[in-house]
Structures are given as C-alpha cells and as structure tokens.
C-alpha cells in the first residue's frame, strides 16, 4: 500500500487528518525519540508525516509530531509525549509507539518493523513489514 492509497482510503472513511508538520518539526521529532531509548523514525513514517501530521479515526489514533487539537476536546498528544510518558517501561525500550486504539498499541522498532501490542501486557501480537498495513489495522479498530 502506498501513502497516497492509505490517505485516500481514510479520508473516504471520514477520518480526521492533521495537517503536515514542517520538515524541521519531523527532523526534531526523530532526534528527540533517539534520545529517549525509543526507536528512530523509519523512513516510511517520516514520509507519511511529510503529508499528514497524524490521524484520528473514532477511537483509533496515529500520533504525529504536533498535538492534534479538536475544539473543546482534549488534544491528541504528540508521538513524543506518548513515548516520554512510557519511556520507563522496559518492554518498550528500543520501540516507539506510533498508534493506539481501545485494545492495542502500535509500535515500530529500530529496523522499521511494526508491531501490534496488547495494550496492557505489551505482548507483541502481530508483526508488520509494511507500516501502512499496521496503521490500517490500528485505525480500522477505531470504529467497531
């Protein structure tokens, strides 16, 4: 699946797509993640951020470099905030969380491999070589 196919699909499904952040913001985000025992941004996610700063689809979220504000609702935190809050958890060392829904977290490792993790035990339940496939599973479960 390409970035464009993925974005067209979720636009069609009525997801909220945040505006793309600046290149500088993406680079800074990658550098901060590297400094906190998380995995650095894989190329595919950097390219995704160049077109979209995160997605909300019901209870499914792809976190971006900037907060996603939603009027009076609590904003969706940044990928940095989410990973900073969880950086002390040994099971997440070497991984970066980039999405969540009511059942699972989604993370990538230093090799760019993505995982579906149980949201309470962080046990890997599924492995993805294609981050768009992982993002699709993450967001699809946001509207059950």
């Amino acid at each position, binding site marked *: 699946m390409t970035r464009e196919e993925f974005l067209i699909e979720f636009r069609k499904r009525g997801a909220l797509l945040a505006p793309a952040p600046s290149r500088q913001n993406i680079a800074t985000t990658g550098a901060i993640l590297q400094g906190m025992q998380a995995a650095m941004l894989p190329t595919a996610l950097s390219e995704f951020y160049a077109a979209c700063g995160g997605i909300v689809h*019901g*209870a499914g979220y792809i976190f971006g470099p900037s907060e996603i504000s939603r009027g009076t609702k*609590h904003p969706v*935190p940044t990928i940095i905030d*989410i990973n900073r809050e969880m950086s002390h958890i040994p099971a997440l060392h070497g991984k970066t969380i980039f999405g969540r829904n009511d*059942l699972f*977290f989604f993370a990538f490792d230093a090799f760019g491999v993505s995982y579906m993790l149980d*949201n309470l*035990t962080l046990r890997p339940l599924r492995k993805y070589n294609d981050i768009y496939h992982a993002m699709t599973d993450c967001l699809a479960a946001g509207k059950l």
Partner: protein
Amino acid sequence: MQLSQASAEKIMKDMCMEDMPLISMQPTPHQMPADWFTRYKKARHSFMQSLGESIEELAFMNLSQEEFMDLLMGRALPANTSIRMRVPICWGGEISPDNMFMCSTFPHSQNIDRFIIGQAGNETIWLPAPAKKIYIPAHTAGGGEGGNATEDRLAQMAAQFAASRGME
C-alpha cells in the same frame, strides 16, 4: 514492584483520578475464545445502547446532539472516548457490557493503560473500578451556578431519543 493499595491510589491521584475506586486481582492468563472479537464488538454496541440510563454523566460530556444519538443508538463513540474492560479479557474478564466502562481516551484511558502496564509481573494487580458506567472525574463534574441549560438540553435530547425509538 508490588503496589500497596495506598501506593496504587497515590499513582491514580498523581494522574488526577483520585476518585477512581480500585480493586485488586491476581491475574492469571486465560485463553482467548476463538470468537472473542465478534463477541467484543457486539458487547460494545450493547454497552453503548445501555447508556441511556447514565443520562447524568452524559450531560457532563458536552456531546453534540448527533454524538448523543449515535452513542445511544450504538452507532459510534463520541470523539475522545474509550470503552474499557473492567477485568481484561486476557485475565478472564467476561466479554459482556457488565464488564465495561467508558471514559475519555486522553488523558484517562491512556493513563489507565500506563497504570496497569506499570504493574507488569506483579502477583496482585490493581484495576480501576468506577462505580458507574461512565467515569467522569469529580473535579470535572462540578456544576456551574444556577441556570437550567443542562436540564433543558437533557429534556430535549431525551425526547428526541424516545421519538427515534418509537417511544411515547
């Protein structure tokens, strides 16, 4: 490190959920039934439809009319809300609306995940157990002074909901 009730409550307090009751359990991994996902989806919809009896909590969620109707008809959750299992399915929790509660995704559901993950490997796990179907922290549920806007809004919504269900 094993948490005492006091230390678990302290963590919840630090997450601004000091009014969240906690229960303890000894987690034992359970085999997930093969049809768990289908049953989970069905239970979520039933849970949403059962929220008509939580009208007081719904009033504090400041929902639009459309969100309110979608929720009670079991069609869609309002933005920034999560449905959580009281006892997780993987630890033997029943896949039933009675084992569910609703709260905001950010910050509450995300913080509850962190609270439970932080207890990994412990013999006893503390789990949030809100008294009602919808958890709204006490500090956000305080009413304003005077006015009947909430009451009017509720009456209007209740009438519309009843009409859509063919009730009198």
